[in-house]
């Protein structure tokens, strides 16, 4: 049996979460692995921009906060660390970890860097097809920041077989972070598609951290979760046949049960018979879940089919400017005053011919469920006194026009409806991402050991 846990489910996750996971795996005394998934489409683009401005940056900003408390224990207990915290700059992250090891008196670690995901300037995007899930999103226009393909688990597995104690990746498919160590440990064949599928499913369940162990789950009175301030991150106990138990770190809050596993099983899955990854096409329609004691769920029945012929790649581009501004109206007739603020701003945008996309939400009435056109707000009938916050958003390619639109909200202080207060405003550039499908022969996934320069 092999234990593999999760230490982070996104960039910005709880930084102390890995500690109880590592302690639990170490206490079992058989080694294992811990994975860190800290790389979304947006995070990667931000990392690419950071690296452009500072060649030594572009990796996970919380890297040291995550690893410093656990690095020594992982090294001592044979727990391999695998993370896509390299983001846009895996060699820089490897250097930071090597320096950390020296600082902690751990000597020189074997740190592997996975490369080959960065296709920037290496492929002609006009020769590739768009991914079908972006629907109406516009085509590539403007400056491409980076192109990154989702790599599979092979370079991770090879690096661990070669003795890596830490594997730093950039863009790899999230489940590959788990599949790699499992393939290395059990020596599974890449042609054994059901086992590759099982390892991929374990990865899918672990990749979002606590989302399988009580995070993003609590709904008081319906789905109660104990200890939400100390949710234990998940650990999979995987058998050689690919079956596994999902559990969580000892002595923590949170919960692992059939409900938490079901929600995560289908999270961001489209066709459940064909979840496409670089390593296998995963079919979860035959998956069986069974309770296996408190906070333990046994998972069996993943099936695998041949991996898709092409790899998904994220294309990040400089996007438009986003301006946001908010103002509050409370007490008698507040909603009517909020609505008047919206129509007033609409008219000002038109009068000044600012040419920005814009939308308004009334927080406390209708916001996140509504559309850019405000269809739900039109139908919203409650006129009782309330406490509302109008939130305006403006988008456009002209920084100046977006700033001017935001300034119009500030001007509501004196010129807007009665009793408007608490204006907050911000203007920032955005990155845009769309996905393309890339032939595999244009992608060369590989690993190398980082140079020792503590």
């Amino acid at each position, binding site marked *: 049996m092999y234990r593999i846990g999760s230490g982070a489910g996104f960039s910005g996750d709880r930084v102390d979460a890995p500690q109880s996971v590592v302690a639990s795996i170490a206490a079992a005394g058989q080694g294992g692995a811990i994975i860190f998934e800290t790389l979304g489409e947006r995070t990667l683009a931000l990392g690419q921009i950071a690296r452009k401005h500072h060649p030594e940056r572009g990796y996970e900003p919380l890297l040291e906060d995550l690893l410093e408390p656990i690095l020594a224990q992982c090294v001592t207990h044979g727990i391999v660390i695998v993370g896509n915290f390299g983001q846009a700059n895996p060699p820089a992250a490897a250097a930071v970890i090597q320096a950390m090891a020296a600082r902690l008196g751990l000597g020189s670690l074997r740190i592997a860097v996975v490369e080959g995901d960065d296709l920037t300037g290496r492929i002609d995007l006009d020769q590739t097809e768009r991914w079908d*899930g972006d629907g109406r*999103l516009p085509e590539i226009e403007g400056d491409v920041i980076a192109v990154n393909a989702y790599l599979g688990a092979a370079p991770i597995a090879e690096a661990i077989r070669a003795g890596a104690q830490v594997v730093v990746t950039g863009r790899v498919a999230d489940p590959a972070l788990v599949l790699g160590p499992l393939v290395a440990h059990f020596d599974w064949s890449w042609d054994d598609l059901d086992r590759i599928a099982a390892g991929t499913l374990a990865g899918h369940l672990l990749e979002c951290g606590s989302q399988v162990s009580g995070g993003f789950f609590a709904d008081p009175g319906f789905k109660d979760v104990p200890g939400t301030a100390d949710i234990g991150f998940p650990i999979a106990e995987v058998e050689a046949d690919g079956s596994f138990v999902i559990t969580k770190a000892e002595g923590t809050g949170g919960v692992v049960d059939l*409900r938490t596993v079901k929600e995560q099983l*289908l999270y*961001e*899955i*489209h066709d459940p018979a064909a979840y496409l990854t670089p390593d296998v096409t995963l079919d979860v329609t035959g998956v069986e879940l069974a309770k296996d004691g408190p906070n333990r769920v046994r998972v069996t029945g993943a099936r695998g089919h041949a991996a898709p012929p092409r790899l998904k790649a994220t294309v990040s581009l400089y996007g438009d400017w986003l301006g946001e501004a908010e103002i509050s109206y409370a007490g008698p007739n507040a909603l009517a005053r909020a609505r008047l603020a919206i129509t007033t701003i609409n008219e000002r945008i038109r009068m000044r011919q600012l040419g920005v996309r814009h*939308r308004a939400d009334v927080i406390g009435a209708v916001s996140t469920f509504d559309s850019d056109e405000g269809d739900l707000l039109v139908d919203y009938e409650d006129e009782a006194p309330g406490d509302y916050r109008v939130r305006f958003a403006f988008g456009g390619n002209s920084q100046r026009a977006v700033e001017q639109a935001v300034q119009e909200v500030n001007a509501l202080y004196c010129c807007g409806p009665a009793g408007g207060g608490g204006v907050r405003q911000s203007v920032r550039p955005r*990155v845009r991402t769309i996905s393309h499908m890339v032939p595999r022969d244009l992608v060369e996934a590989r690993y190398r050991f980082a140079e020792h320069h503590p």
Partner: protein
Amino acid sequence: MSGHFATTALHRIAHGRSGDKGNRLNVNVIAYEARHWPVLLSEVTVERVAALFAHRGVTQVTRYELPRLGALNFVIEDALEGGVNSSLGLDTHGKCLSYLVLGMEIRVPVEPGEGPRPSPQLQTAP
């Protein structure tokens, strides 16, 4: 089906989670109890889910059925007004949107002596 029905929110018999990829949203809807699986199948239809998202300009809704899990998975195209990097909305990921589906009103059969879940809002209809 014969007998009595109660009108209630889907949220009382099912839970779920939403996720995004690009401009595509997926929402899973999972029955708390196996006996409500047929209710999900008959009540939480593609048409009704599409209607919930009509104002967002969705172009297609696909429903996948997972009877072993008592779960439905909806894939909703173009629901995110541009998605995480382009939308002007507050919740650019669509993380709140599972609760738009769970707020759907449904009809649940009521057997004598029990309800879907006791609720003061439960209305019994013939």
